[in-house]
């Protein structure tokens, strides 16, 4: 694949010379296919048969998206880095969707009693006074959360607590990732304000959990 500057990529992808444009599109496609196995190595090992199909699908979608958004490239990075970013977003969005497709929020937020006693409660090295203190602090924090946060904030937190990605929680709550992040950010600010009003700096609460 020939090395190109950002300007060359942009010029060739916009070229009215069809062979030149096709060559650039083909190289773009190859660039994406080459990068995705590295990007997705934590999700799909290189030998996983699903990787090839996903990479082909994502590469095709990425090329279309890049062409559609060519004018929005502002040159803050190499053009190819920008392309990889777009491919990664498309690929991870699809992987997250697949992984969580059969899980509803209702399913996710049920199941009390399926899990064992937390390790720290069973740890004989944790003294009884410290265990009680921690339980009291956790109960107090839980109470504050219920008082300070909306049902929507609590639902989102519980889903995130169960490991569902932000994007998937947002989809199920008929919102988007930006709005959900803001919802959680507002929740954190509310909790901080409440802790401040109560006279308990976060640092001090954290310190109360340290040690056994």
């Amino acid at each position, binding site marked *: 694949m020939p090395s190109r500057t950002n300007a060359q990529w942009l010029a060739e992808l916009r070229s009215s010379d069809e062979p030149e444009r096709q060559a650039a599109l083909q190289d773009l496609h190859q660039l994406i296919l080459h*990068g995705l196995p590295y*990007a997705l190595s934590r999700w799909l090992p290189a030998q996983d048969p699903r990787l090839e199909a996903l990479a082909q699908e994502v590469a095709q979608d990425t090329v279309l998206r890049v062409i559609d958004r060519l004018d929005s490239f502002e040159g803050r990075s190499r053009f190819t*880095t920008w392309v990889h970013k777009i491919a990664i977003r498309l690929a991870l969005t699809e992987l997250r969707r697949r992984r969580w497709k059969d899980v509803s929020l209702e399913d996710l937020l049920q199941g009390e009693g399926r899990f064992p006693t937390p390790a720290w409660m069973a740890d004989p090295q944790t003294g009884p006074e410290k265990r009680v203190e921690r339980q009291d602090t*956790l109960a107090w924090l839980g109470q504050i959360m219920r008082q300070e946060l909306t049902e929507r904030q609590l639902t989102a*937190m519980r889903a995130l607590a169960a490991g569902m990605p932000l994007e998937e929680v947002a989809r199920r709550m008929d919102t988007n990732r930006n709005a959900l992040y803001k919802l*959680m950010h507002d929740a954190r600010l509310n909790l901080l304000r409440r802790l401040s009003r109560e006279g308990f700096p976060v640092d001090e609460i954290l310190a109360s959990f340290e040690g056994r």
Partner: protein
Amino acid sequence: MAIGRLWAKLKRIAGRPGEMDQTDPLASALDLLRSLQLTQPGELNCGQVYELIEAAAEAQLRGEPVERIMPLIALHLKVCPDCLEEYEALLRVLRSTDTS
């Protein structure tokens, strides 16, 4: 998101039945409290971070700490696991391929 993981854990302690408790509530409480320590009024959202993340990744690979040159990006990555996953994936690509 760290703050999110606490809620389900606190349910058992606070006595609301029928809800899930998958991980250690102490660990989750610590996650929550650490995320509160990081919280600032003017945080960037995921979309704003997405617009800058490729520049941040390239800067990091040039040896310029993101915490120093793009502190709001660094902060967001500490509290948003989705964006962190994407950032780390981009770093892996840039480290492993010649993208010029």
